[in-house]
């Protein structure tokens, strides 16, 4: 996947910087690279839900490692987004147990309602739809993850509508 440069400087807030120190201190002396995955999560949360080249380079400097060490990790793990995503990233599990309990229907309902295809973002920038692999919620299928939350048993259109409404209201309230 191609990494994107924004040309913009990134910097953690005071609070996040504190968190960074706390995370790095968890590991034995000289093993600060262990903080890489947690720091990339922190960066992704703080810098708009994805990792630009600038964000990755920033993390590399904090850990005193080469930028390439960050790129190779960021490209390996599926949770790091290397291009911008919508305000709400809807990650629908498509693996076997979810598939046999209606995951495909859930994806097509979302595609229809949001007027986007899997992998795309709505023009208002609110939603990105993405299929992912097993999220360890197989008994509560069909399901999707949005941010910190798992939304499970999305087996009717009403529940899907409700979820989208709830997210839209949340966005409106914060704007």
């Amino acid at each position, binding site marked *: 996947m191609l990494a994107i440069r924004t040309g913009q400087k990134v910097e953690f807030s005071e609070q996040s910087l504190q968190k960074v120190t706390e995370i790095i201190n968890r590991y034995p002396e000289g093993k600060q690279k262990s*903080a890489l*995955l947690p720091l990339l999560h922190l960066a992704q949360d703080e810098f708009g839900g994805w990792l630009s080249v600038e964000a990755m380079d920033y993390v590399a400097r904090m850990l005193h490692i080469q930028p390439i060490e960050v790129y190779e990790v960021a490209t390996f793990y599926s*949770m790091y987004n290397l291009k911008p995503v919508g305000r709400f990233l809807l990650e629908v599990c498509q*693996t*076997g147990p979810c598939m046999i309990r209606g995951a495909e229907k859930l994806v097509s309902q979302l595609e229809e309602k949001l007027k986007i295809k899997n992998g795309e973002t709505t023009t208002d920038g609110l939603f990105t739809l993405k299929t992912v692999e*097993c999220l360890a*919620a*197989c008994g*509560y299928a069909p399901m999707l993850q949005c941010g910190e939350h798992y939304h499970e048993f999305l087996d009717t259109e009403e529940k899907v509508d409700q979820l989208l409404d709830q997210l839209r209201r949340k966005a409106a309230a914060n704007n």
Partner: protein
Amino acid sequence: MSRKILLDKIGIAGIETFPVYRSNGGYASVEKALKMQPADIVEEVKKSGLRGRGGAGFPTGLKWSFIDKKSGRPRYLVCNADESEPGTFKDRFLMEKLPHLVLEGMITASIALEANLSFIYVRGEFRWIIKILEKAIVEAKEAGFLGRNILGTGYNLEIVVQTGAGAYICGEETALIESLEGKRGNPRIKPPFPAVSGLYGNPTVVSNVESIAAVPWIVNNGGAEYAKIGVPKSSGTKLISACGNINNPGVYEIELGLPVKDFLFAPEWCGGMKNGKRLKAVVAGGSSVPILPAGLFLKTANGEDRLMSYESLADGGFATGTMLGSGGFIVYDEDQCIVRNTWNFTRFYHHESCGQCSPCREGTGWMERILHNIENGHGKMSDIDLLWDVQKKIEGNTICPLGDAAAWPVAAAIRHFRDEFEWHIKEPKECMVRNFGIAEPAIV
């Protein structure tokens, strides 16, 4: 057959908090372990017969006894909470509902291994669980069960919650260690085994959440008592996460040796097939284990009732048996297409292959394309033998067992449902018209 030792306190209000957990007997194993010789704790775990609950079923006590204590290098315990095997959602349940049980197990296990720094590696998607665990750690520290000079004994232990970032392969113990070092999750060549050279090149034990959660009971009650639960060679209880076309999907603690028929049809467990459908097939231990058609799942090739135990599920080898695996129990009804399911699983393994070994990297992609073709009506009869050939060339030819995990589901599907593959190739649009492998007569 419904003894509970992991989930026995699950109904108690507030059990996820330290005071309630403690007042219900929690952390007693830490007090006891601190008065024992570490080697004696390992001995009790050995005696218990506890087998690793992460999938491979290797005896936990034996694994712990391999840890190198002689070199004097720091030792680490790593609790594997990566839980990514399709069908498996039991560790999540334990951590959500009983975070202090998991911590208690980790502390007791760390005492046994004489580790002063331990990690719990949680899959990155479980963000709320990371918070639950971090809160529990703060509570345990305040109460003196973690941190410096635990309970005044001079023993120090820190537990770090480490987050993954979306990669099934990081459940494999050496990939997990790489990831914990801040790298890509590429499994290491063994030997050396982690017990000799693991995290930061130091002796390390990686154990599954559920294995670790069984330790407090074993230390409190003795390994011999634990060994009395269940059946010989499959002692104790096991969490089974049941999903698919059943009435009651969820997480259940069963005593090993429970007849599979009871587990599948009795109301206290899966509650039978949803919508009164007939049973077609079961994947008994997570997506990696061989799928069995209804008949062979319910009874072994010798006509014996199959039990939920390591031995009984494996009876007949891969020709007619399967594995208990991680306890991810996936049930398929008569409306499910085996070709489609196999394609779906193969896509999963292709996506999750780390790419180090060419048989796995190329083979999983190749199998996915063949299965995709068959599923979409472009299959040829020769594709079935080709698939068989490709999976055979992956099996056993990779650094880590992900290759096997990708090969076995394909092999089992062809072995038991070859007629369905053939029919699918001949009549792709009518794949569900004829039923293959369904339990007759219908069991309700």
